[in-house]
Structures are given as C-alpha cells and as structure tokens.
C-alpha cells in the first residue's frame, strides 16, 4: 500500500468551525454567548463608571460585528464604515433636534439610506482588489468629513449638533445609565444574532466563497458583485443603527467625533481583528478586550502623553496582523484542534 494512501483519520464530530450544527446547537451557543456578555451588566448595574464602559463595549461590539459581515465574512476590508455610522448619526440628530421626531421612527429609514449609499459607492469600488478597495473606502470617509463640515446649514458644520435632554422612552433618552446599557445590549444581541443566522444562510455561504476565491465562486454560479453589494448593504444598515444609538447616548455629534478614522471607522475593523475576523464571537470579544483597556489607557495617559492610547492600539494592530491573524477566537480554535488531534492519537 502506498504511504500516501494511508487511512485518513476518522471523521471529526461536528468541528466547531462548521455552521452546519443543528439549529438547536447554534441557538444554544448564541444564548450562552449572550448570557456571558450580559453578565457584567447584571453584576455591575450599580456602578455608573462601569456601566458607561459596559454600554460602550456593547455598542462597539455591535458595530464591529456589523463591519464583520462584509469585512470578515465577505473579506472586503472597508475602512469607510464611518460614513454609514455618520449617516445614522446625522439623520437621527437632525430629525430629533430640528423636527422633534422620535429616534425610534427615524432609525430604520436612516439605516435604509445608509444601505442605499453603501451600495451606490461600493458598486464602482468593488472591482478594486484588497488594498485599493481599502484606500477608496478611506477616501470616502475623508470626503464625508469634508462634506459634513461644508454643508453646515444642514449638519451644523464644525459646531456639530446637540440634542437637548428630554428623558422618555419615545425620545430614546434615559435617566439611568443602566437603561442605555440595556439598549446597547439589545443592539449587539441583535447584530450577533443576525450574524448567526447569516452564517447558516445561503448569502452567508456565498460571502465566504467570495472571500476565499472570487474566480472559484463565479465558477459555482455566484454573482460576485451582487453578493458583495448585499453584504455591504446589510453591514451598512446595522452600522447606521449603531450610529443612531450612539447619537442618542452622547447627545452631541460633530464631524471629528464621527469621521476620525482611527477612532471610528478603523476601530470597527480593529476590534474584529483582535477578537477574530470572520468569526461570530470575535467582534464582541474584541470589544470586550479593547474598549475597557483603551478607556484605562486614555484615563491614565491622556494628560502626560496624548494619543498614546492610539499608539498602543496601532502597535497591537501590527502585532495582531503578524502573530494572531485569526484573533483570540482563532487562537482558541487552533488550541482546541490541537487538543482534539492529540486525543485522536496516531
């Protein structure tokens, strides 16, 4: 018998990377993940400092998970998601402060607008490969910044828009921090839930195929451009909703707050990278690791060494790209497979 013809190892039982576990198992894991994520909220409900961090962690987790749909599953590294975030933010701010509309009402139309804009600007740029696509999306972000400053009668220009405090569920303005935290938790639970569904849906498989090899995907009958646009639209929609929530939490937005690449657009990608690009738990895990850490850095270092928090994040990005490409989740999965391999024995 030829050596290379040796018996292949017995088939593994439901490896963790397969999205094909029975619906029950996937649902179970999702609920477990959400329970784990919600625990800090329950235990730290009395502490306003931690509540703020927790709320932001959930929000950033949801935003990173939204990015992950097109960036992780689809493999299209957009650095321009700040644009969709900004659209959600500005539409909400203008509608509430100027026209007295309820953010709940405006949230979905704003997100639909973001999705349409996303498809419009992606359509010509999706033919660009990797880095050039990233540059183009980066440029979109810069253009959005300029436009937001320029059309100041509309956006308030550099002065931004402030939303007066008027508590009430209909206004999406809450008196208690923990209520905001719950709102953000619902958001991230929604987005992660959508990614769980997506991963097991036809669109999800198509996105993964496009990520792996576009030619191969085409040979399987996939309309690559259409799939990318759909992924981008969904991603932009959810990102814009995050923008709405952000606006109602801070009640102040201006162009730098929304469009500074390093703080916003790139941050979504960074969190996904650290946690695990293309995984379901990765973005949330990345947020849980980085948001409190960055908060700590900013608090400690901001006076003595401004910007150091971003410098350290930058360094983390370089190190993660070099040594931990699949993020914490990926490292964990690799470890699990090593253990299973040892158990299988030779």
């Amino acid at each position, binding site marked *: 018998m030829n050596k290379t*013809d040796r018996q*292949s190892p017995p088939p593994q039982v439901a*490896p963790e990377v397969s999205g*094909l576990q029975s619906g029950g198992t996937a649902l179970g894991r999702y609920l477990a993940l959400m329970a784990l994520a919600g625990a800090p909220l329950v235990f730290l409900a009395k502490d306003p400092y931690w509540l703020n961090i927790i709320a932001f962690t959930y929000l950033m987790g949801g935003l990173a998970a939204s990015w992950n749909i097109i960036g992780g599953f689809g493999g299209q590294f957009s650095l321009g998601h700040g644009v969709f975030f900004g659209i959600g933010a500005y539409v909400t701010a203008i509608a509430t402060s100027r026209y007295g509309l309820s953010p709940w009402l405006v949230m979905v139309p704003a997100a639909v607008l973001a999705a349409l804009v996303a498809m419009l600007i992606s359509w010509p740029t999706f033919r660009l490969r990797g880095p050039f696509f990233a540059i183009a999306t980066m440029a979109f972000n810069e253009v959005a910044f300029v436009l937001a400053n320029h059309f100041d009668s509309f956006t308030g220009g550099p002065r931004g828009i402030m939303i007066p405090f008027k508590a009430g569920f209909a206004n999406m303005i809450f008196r208690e921090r923990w209520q905001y935290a719950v709102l953000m938790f619902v958001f991230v639970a929604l987005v992660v839930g959508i990614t769980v569904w997506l991963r097991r849906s036809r669109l999800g498989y198509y996105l993964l195929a496009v990520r*792996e090899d576009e*030619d191969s995907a*085409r040979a*399987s009958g996939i309309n690559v451009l259409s799939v990318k646009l759909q992924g981008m639209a969904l991603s932009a929609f959810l990102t814009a909703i995050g923008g709405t929530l952000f606006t109602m939490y801070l009640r102040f937005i201006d162009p730098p707050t929304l469009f500074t690449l390093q703080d916003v657009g790139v941050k979504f990608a960074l969190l996904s990278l650290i946690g695990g690009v293309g995984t379901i738990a990765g973005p949330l895990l990345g947020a849980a690791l980085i948001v409190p850490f960055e908060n700590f850095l900013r608090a400690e270092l901001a006076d003595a060494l401004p910007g150091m928090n971003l410098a350290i994040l930058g360094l983390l990005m370089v190190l993660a790209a070099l040594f931990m490409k699949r993020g914490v989740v990926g490292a964990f999965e690799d470890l699990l497979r090593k253990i299973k391999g040892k158990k299988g024995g030779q």
Partner: protein
Amino acid sequence: MSQALLQTRGASKHFMGLKAVDDVSLSVNKGEVVSIIGPNGAGKTTYFNLLTGQLAPTLGEVSLRGQTINALPPHERAKLGMGRTFQIVKPLIALSALENVMVGAFLQYARMADARDRAMAVLTRVGLGAHAKRRAGDLTLSERRRLEVARALALGPEIVLLDEVMAGLNQSETGRCIDLLRSLHEEDGLTFLIIEHNLKVVRAFSERVIVLDRGRLIAEGTAEDILSSPEVVKAYLGEGHQWTPS
C-alpha cells in the same frame, strides 16, 4: 447533424502584442471526452478562461448549444451547465467538505436542507462521503481534488472543464481519479473537456485529443494518432527526441 455542445470559432486572446490564444476552433459534442495537451505556456488555461468567461476573446466566438455566449459572465455560464475546476485548488478551507459543495448546490436547490442533501449525494459519488464533516483545510491533495470535482458536479452541469485535475497525484490516486471520471462519463453521461499533462491519463480516458502550441491548435485527432505523431513530440520535447510510447 446535431449541434455541438460547446464550440469556439477562431477564438483568440491577445495581450499587448502577445497572442496567448491564436485562432482556435474546436467543437465538443455531447457525451464526448476531449483532452487538450501542449507544452507549458501553450495557452491551455487561457483558452479555458475564454470558454468559462473569465476572459473575453479578442477575436472569435464562443458558443454553448449553438448560442453565442461571448458576453456572458462566468456565473451565468455556470448556470447554463458549464462546470469547471482550477489548476490550483482553492477550497473554502475553514468550512467542512459538505459546506464547500453546498455552495455549488445552492444553484439548483434554494433550501438549505435540499442543498445539503444534494451536496451529500455528490460527495458520496466522488467517494468523499465519509469526510463530509471534515474541515476542507485538513484534506489531503487527492481528497481536495475530488472535492474540487464535487463542487463542479454540484451545479448539475452538462459539460465539465477540468484543468490538470491529476497534477500532483501519485499513481494509485491517479488511477482512482480516472475511474471516477470514467464512471461519471459512462453512468451520468457527462461531457468532459480536460487539460492534461499526464499522457497516460490522456490515453486512458480521452476519445479525442487536441494539441495547442504557442496559442495555436497544431493537431487534432484520436488519442492514438496524436500521441504517436512526430509533430506533437517535437512541440513537447523539442527537436532530436525520440518518443517511445510505453
């Protein structure tokens, strides 16, 4: 005379003065097995790319079942019944073998459960049934090549284009692959157009052989005739070689 299933007339592809494919006319009839052979750089894969729509022809025409498809993008051609494998296999390494094949199965089966069943059936057909749940990245080369074929089969194609599907396989793996292809041809009635370097495979499996050299079609005939033609030998091995058919 029934029309050819897949046909090119005067197909050419020019790149900045270089004629990668030069005036190639070929007809593949339903149920045939046709091989394309030729030295490296002869333009075989480029020709394939013209057939599948990856590249647009500079001159000439590609037609499927008598209809010109020059303007049709690759995914539409896949929908019309053209399956294709690539020289360098690129499975979706993070997914299971089953999920890999499901991607192709979605073309005809919109529902998850149906696509999964279809994918399972195809995997069993190519002999990978036991590996369905294994991560594609963990498969051996021989298994990956069969997975690649499975992905093409999942489309339910009428004609399958194989690009050096045996490359890198050892003798017994090659034998098993030939058996699989034969059975797909005889039992499922699939038409094959294959690029091959391994002349033993060509002889074992093909009915007709065409030879490309520097983009031009220099010979066409049965496997017997082609493989003993001195012209072909010269193109492959250069002057002064003696071809000893084994």
